[in-house]
């Protein structure tokens, strides 16, 4: 596990509302936290844990910039409460690299120029990781369907499709 995958706790804020204790495994490391009930998972990750690789791009669960894996399923963390992660596993972009080695999806994105500004990239990559876990050998059509909940304004998607195909090939699949 890469050191960057560990939360770096930022300044503790006063607690103003009702709280719950949650037990959550973040990028393979188990933690116990007290969280305010209304805190969204994305704000918990970003503002409380300082894990800012997960981004925010809208308020209606459309853009997918905040996509993380919750028990290996991609979810938009702007529409999940932190308390809903209790007893579950969260994987974020910070947890993709392992032992100093990039994940094949990360390799694919840089090799095929699947990113420009980089803002949608973490969410796009987490969706891609989940797709390849379920379907190691996706067609272009299947890739386009799978990432249709992640908006990118810069790339026009062509190279994102290639990036995911690249990762599929590197992982032994690929059409």
């Amino acid at each position: 596990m890469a050191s960057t995958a560990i939360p770096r706790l930022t300044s503790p804020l006063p607690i103003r509302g009702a709280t719950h204790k949650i037990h959550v495994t973040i990028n393979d490391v188990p933690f116990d936290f007290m969280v305010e009930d209304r805190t969204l998972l994305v704000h918990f990750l970003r503002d409380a844990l300082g894990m800012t690789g997960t981004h925010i791009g809208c308020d209606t669960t459309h853009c997918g910039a905040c996509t993380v894996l919750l028990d290996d399923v991609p979810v938009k963390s702007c529409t999940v409460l932190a308390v809903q992660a209790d007893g579950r596993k969260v994987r974020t972009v910070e947890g993709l690299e392992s032992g100093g080695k990039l994940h094949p999806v990360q390799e694919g994105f840089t090799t095929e120029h699947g990113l420009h500004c980089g803002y949608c990239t973490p969410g796009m990559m987490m969706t891609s990781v989940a797709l390849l876990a379920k379907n190691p050998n996706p067609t272009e059509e299947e890739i386009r369907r799978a990432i249709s909940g992640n908006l990118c304004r810069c790339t026009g998607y062509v190279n994102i499709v290639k990036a995911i195909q690249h990762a599929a090939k590197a992982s032994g699949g690929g059409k």
Partner: protein
Amino acid sequence: MTIHGGIGQSLQRKEDARFIRGKGNYVDDIQLAGMLYLDFTRSPYAHAKITAIRSEKALKVPGVLAVITGKDLDAAKLAWMPTLMSDTQMVLPIDTVKFQGQEVAGVVAENRYAAADGAAAVEIDYEPLPVVTDPVKALQPDSPLVRPEKPKKSNHIWHWEVGDKAGTDALLAKSDVVVHQDFYIPRINVSSIETCGCVASFDPMGRLTMYMTTQAPHAIRTVFALVSGLPEQSIRVISPDIGGGFGGKVPVYPGYVVAIVAALKTGHPVKWVETRTNNLMSSSFARDYHISADIGVTKDGKLTGLKVKTIADHGYADAAANPSKFPAGLFHIITGSYPFEKAFVEVDGVYTNKPPGGIAYRCSFRVTEAAYSIERLVDEVAHKIGMDPAELRLKNFIPPEAFPYHSALGWTYDSGNYGGALKLAMQMVDYPALRREQAEKRKKGEFMGIGISSFTEIVGAGPAHTFDILGLKMFESCEIRIHPTGKVMARFGTKNQGQGHETTYAQILATELGIPAENISIEEGDTDTAPYGLGTYASRSTPTAGAAAVVAARKIRDKAQKIAAHLLEVSPEDLEWKDYKFQVKGVPEKSKTMADVAFAAYTNPAPGVEAGLEAVDYYDPPNMTYPFGSYICVVDIDKGTGAIHIRRFVAVDDCGTVINPMIVEGQIHGGLTMGLAPAMYEQITYDEGGNIRGSSFLDYLVPTSVETPHWETGRTVTPSPHHPIGAKGVGESATVGAPAAIVNAIVDALSPLGVTNIDIPVYPWKVWQILHDKGQT
């Protein structure tokens, strides 16, 4: 002989290393000790008098520290601010609101949730006023006044015109055929996936550090200094990683200013980040042009004259970001790729009860509006006179030998080979076969269309004699420092937002300095360290900063030659720069690399030569650059539903010399998608009461991977003769060129039904309505 990472190589991007690890540093990632959050109470009305603002309940919300209103700002003379177009706009209103979603009161709290709770608890009493959202109605004498405080007492802001009106009228009168067409180019929103935001922080000495999503950090620093009265050296603007700009991050929005005031008032750093709904309601608007055009042609297909009248809806303030002398931007590039003998363009800017608009949307100032109009008109002319649209274009194009070409509206095009690009695109799609297929399909009652767009762009603003923003000349800068170990740090006045500057600038310098790209670091966006520049927008980085990089590098080479001569014990004239080294002429084994010279520059400088190896250049481009291209789109229309399927889209671009082919192709893919968007999906509309329809991604349709076709690209290379390496800029060409190709294809498909135009965005229901009305479905 090549240098690793030099010009022309598809070098993997340097900046990717942090982005793919989630280690980018965007504004909302910045956390400072004791940082507070700012949110706004916004107006539910498009036009209303504010009769009372009560903050008491908001201040009782746990965690809320302050409420800031227009009256508070007025006491410090900060309730209003200048726009980049010499108009004024509100920071916060003192007594009236002018559009729905306008910021009315700022609430500062210890976290973003408390700030949002506080904003909901501010109580504001309004008296609604009459609203006008249609610029044509706004020009009528009985219209409500949007800016009654202005001496003019009219919603008309300005009139601008260029060209020969009488000459154009005379020419059109004697043309065999004149085609008239009205186009509405709807209001759209840039919608970069990262919204706008900032963190304002004062140090104990009163020095402001402003982390903000800005495409033009230096210009913003100067504007802040002029508006606030803070000494300019006490302001540091840092533009960190930016999650897409596209023009939406050029203007100054009220949130930035209120964050600074809030930081002053509370003594804490203050963060403000827009929600998507805030962004879609109040910032980053483009276009909103109502165009009426006449184009003349002889019966054998020779284009004659062009006359264009436009009403530009700017919302309640002209807060566009055009060069000062051009209130309608570079709209007079509208004669496009054709040698019109005469042309005339007039534009009238109008106030309405909408948020300020008129910024660019991944296109140089108003160039899409121009390219769309001319390329739609040319197709209409072709249909009208029964000539193939490709043939009409090839017959009329400005020929390659006519460059530099002086257009009827005053531009001097640098270089072009329009026929070459169109012929390549036709070859790539097999145009004759497509036309044969279309003829077959028409016999069977099927609707297939082929659309062409052969656009000419104008980018790289710009020459100081003509181009400035608030008086700041639109030069661009590069500063290079070569360290003793031969490693390079170069800084620029531009600002990357995803274009790949950290890579392409390094490639230019690799070639010019003979140092591999991996040994060259590029930095932008910090006004304390980068040389002054006007920023990145309108595809200007490569034409201006790219040129500054070359000139600065050549200044270094001049000095380095003297040091190399000293090391080789020859005179500088005996050396030549060859194979990325200084070689003694005729004796190639006697040579020194730039790294050798760099070490000597600090350890063994030549007599009479200053130590160090650094240079800076402020580059004033002699002219604009004129990228161009030809796009061909093929569509199939479903008769039952009106659904439009883009079967193929081939884009041939010519941006002059290509620095990184991979990045250039990527820019074109992205630009094409932002050309597809307004052609078929995106628009922001308002009802008569000024209520916005489209304030979330539920209603504002940014294309996903499913709507976006598989783009195909091709390239011709016609270097710019005045740019030191012949490059022209490419970030926006495709946004400019694509919409007309798509709409031309759709209109071409439906032309057997007598269809000559469909206003964008072309939704399936519009097509279905036509098919239905014509008895086709």
